[in-house]
């Protein structure tokens, strides 16, 4: 059902192009997608990469449609599943494609006069004018991110701006199957369910905490500068073993004790939610289903749009299988290669509302990146 088209031109979506199987026989198709939690240095989602091998005899050149930067679409029938561009000039018979999301690293966040901006709508609109092959959904946030005047902000890449925006708002950004830039929340209801017979994903204690201690500002002087500090903590009495961690919340300014305790509890909740997955799962058809009990085709299970997966049983931080306890996790990555199992990897942490609060709390409102 899957076909690949190459060499289309882009005007609000792919136009034209040629089907790969009409040019050369090809195989060993591999597709990876990912969805990343946004931090200062990473983020973004969508098609990550694609590669295939072509039947090309020695001395025969590759079809001209396969040149550096050529657009590549993956389709089922005529339904778009992902868009990318050729990242490596094919050498030998193997072609590597990057997802369109990577193009965000190639464009700066500037307005129509070339001045740096932290307004996502302005920056994306201008980048598209400058040749960025994304599509504008028309509903992007329209306010400056920085509290400082824009002239003081250094040139940032579009990806960095999006990462920062989403880190502060506790959201995700991704390039959807049709090439639109999307900004949205973490999913809250699972779309897929793993078969109960699957081995559970292993987890590690690295991110586990049984107690969180936070340092807070307890008083301000007349100029608003901190002059007194205190502490607050939250403990999970049911934790299987003890691991205490601390965080400094000074950057949040003055925090009274109950608020600081609530923050600590939020961080602890987020950590408890975190199973610290050290690996993903590999499934064959039938081991992954909708909650309605129907197995999807492999190309329907891409970590492009944020989706959740339900595991009917899982290994908890202390290593025991939690029979009868299900767990929902956000799909953070998929890898499919012809003839191999479909691999699913979770996003490191199941976000909850409190996690977003923590994320927002620790993200600095001023932009200082690069």
């Amino acid at each position, binding site marked *: *059902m899957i*076909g690949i088209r190459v060499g289309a031109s882009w005007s609000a979506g792919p136009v034209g192009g040629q089907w790969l199987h009409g040019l050369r026989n090809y195989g060993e198709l591999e597709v990876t997608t990912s969805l990343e939690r946004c931090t200062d240095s990473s983020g973004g989602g969508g098609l990550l990469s694609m590669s295939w091998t072509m039947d090309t005899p020695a001395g025969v050149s590759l079809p001209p449609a396969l040149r550096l930067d050529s657009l590549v679409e993956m*389709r089922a*029938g005529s*339904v*778009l599943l992902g868009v990318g561009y050729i990242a490596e000039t094919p050498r030998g018979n193997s072609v590597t494609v990057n997802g369109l999301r990577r193009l965000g690293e190639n464009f700066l966040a500037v307005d129509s006069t070339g001045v740096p901006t932290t307004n996502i709508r302005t920056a994306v609109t201008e980048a598209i004018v400058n040749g960025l092959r994304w599509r504008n959904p028309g509903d992007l946030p329209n306010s400056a991110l920085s509290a400082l005047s824009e002239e003081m902000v250094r040139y940032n890449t579009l990806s960095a701006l999006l990462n920062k925006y989403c880190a502060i708002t506790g959201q995700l950004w991704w390039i959807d199957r049709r090439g639109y830039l999307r900004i949205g929340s973490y999913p809250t209801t699972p779309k897929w369910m793993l078969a109960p017979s699957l*081995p559970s994903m292993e987890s590690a204690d690295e991110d586990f905490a049984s107690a969180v201690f936070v340092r807070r500002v307890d008083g301000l002087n007349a100029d608003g500068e901190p002059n007194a500090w205190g502490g607050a903590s939250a403990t999970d009495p049911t934790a299987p073993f003890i691991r205490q961690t601390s965080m400094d919340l000074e950057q949040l300014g003055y925090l009274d004790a109950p608020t600081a305790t609530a923050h600590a509890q939020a961080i602890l909740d987020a950590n408890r939610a975190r199973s610290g997955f050290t690996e993903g799962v590999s499934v064959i058809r039938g081991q992954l289903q909708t909650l309605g009990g129907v197995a999807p085709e492999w190309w329907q299970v891409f970590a492009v749009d944020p989706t959740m997966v339900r595991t009917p049983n899982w290994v908890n931080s202390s290593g025991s299988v939690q029979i009868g306890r299900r767990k929902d996790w956000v799909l953070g990555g998929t890898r499919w290669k012809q003839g*191999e199992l479909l691999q699913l990897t979770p996003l490191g942490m199941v976000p909850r509302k409190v996690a977003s609060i923590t994320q927002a709390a620790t993200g600095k409102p001023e932009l200082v990146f690069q």
Partner: protein
Amino acid sequence: MASYGLRFGDLDWSPQAINDDVEWRVYGLKRGKPVPVARVAESMFRDGADESVDRYDNRDQQVIVGIRGSDSQVRAEAETALALECQKRRNELAWTPEDGYGATTVFEVLWADLEFDESGDWDLAELRQCEAVYIVTFRVRPFGMSESEVVDEALTAGASPVTYTVSDGSSATGWSSPDGSVSASGGVLRPPTVWLSRVGDPIGQRDTYRALMSSALSSVDFSATPYVSMDVTRGTPSSGTPTAVLSGSMLVDGVQLSLISSQSLSAITSRYTYRCDDPSATSITVAATTAVYSVGKSSIPKPSQSLVFDNIVASNQPPGASSTGRETLRVLTIRGSARTEGRLQVMHETDTLGDVAIYSRPGLGVGGTPDMKRWRVSGGTMTPNTSTASGSFETLTVGEGTATVFHVPADSLPRGGYLAYARVGSASGTISRSVSLSAATLVGSTPYGKQTITSDVRSLVTSIPSWTLVPIGELVLPPTDVPDGSTANVELKLWASGSDTQFDELLLFYAGEGSALTIVRAGNNNSGPVLGSAHNRLFLDTPTLDRPEHAIWVGTTADRSDAFFAGELTDGWGVHPLEAGEAMFFVFNGGKATNPGLTVAHRPHWWLNAQVLDEDSA
């Protein structure tokens, strides 16, 4: 005495072959095996692992061949010919069995490797006996092929519809059954339904039932109306869970007719269409089977069940999903013992095709077809129109609350992924709209497993005559699964992002293993084909030795003399795999052409030895 045949490209190694100065001698043959490629997933709670084979890898064949010549120059010439044959990018190795009964099997050689046979370590045979011995290794595709194709010609349509009604279900006169008397009531024919067999499983019992009846005909000429269809409806069993009608069959003058189409008309009724060219038929027999599940031990009483027949009609119009002839259905039998591929042609002699969607999938024992309009239960006002594919159009509303609603029997949907398309247009002028579709399984009246997809915003022009086939997206159906025999419906809702969006047809293509979809904008012109913009012929070719890639062509002439590669006109291009057994085809076309002909050719694939095809012996 017959002898075997072995041919490699242009070299004939058969013992009876005549070659000038050189004699080829075959000393050994290894035929190899297809290598299964298995995927393994460990299971935590069961012994063993879950494994599945999803394809086969290439096989290796070997021949030990001796070149015997009068002098070393002759041997060198033969070796040169052999080496050149080995270096061809693609070649063929054809094996014919020795007794003249079996058919020739052809293997596609991907590469061949030549090696001088020095197994005796030190070899002076060439000097002593004037014979050079080589080992040739062939890397071939996993399965062998028949030499020739099986071609299922397009079904022709009469210029104006003609029908001959064998029975409209109103009278049982002339009908008889070996199981008892046939009656007519409620507008259907009711032969006795007899119990056939009971099969048990851990949960319960599955009882199979059959109904059969015959009638004499007064020398009917079916050749003018060769498409004979019947509607079979199952009853409500006295207990247990019924399944849909499982199968139907029809015999004319004692000859079983070949099935060309099957279609679910409702959860309980299926229409089967057969091909009959008998010019003077004197008898007809129809039969059908169904099943009922009962929960319990094998001793529980057998439920009673009934099957009734209606609308036994011969027509000169091939079977289609709609009255307009723009949604063609076809069922074909695929020969062989391995998966092959179809070479397809869609054409109309005089009228242009417009947008064409060619869809194929394995039979799967399910009668569901991609057209959804016939499951529509509510929506706007339907206006009949001959430019539509479904026969009528309506205006979509904005928002799900007042959407056009379809109730599809969950039983008719194979489980898996689906691609959804809507044929829409503008009431007047150019508008930009997206179309949304939601799907949920109705359990009682509660929707379960709801999924919603929305198309891209598309520019739509005035629908009559320029409808647009818009891809909406992908779904997993049924949204919530139900067991076989369930009477649950899947509720589909279709709506638009703005007013004045006219809707003709909703297509849901099952996209599971073995299915393929090709969508080509062949162009439409109501006054006839225009090369370059409006075409009436479409060809999908499988790889050949000369052109090892797939190809797709459009044109206006049958001999392809004006055809050109249609890559730019192709929105979706599937490679149409054909599993041995039953294959279903559905052709949607949006242009002026009605009942376009679908010709399907396939080269049967075999594990090792090809069977004789009917076409060979004819």
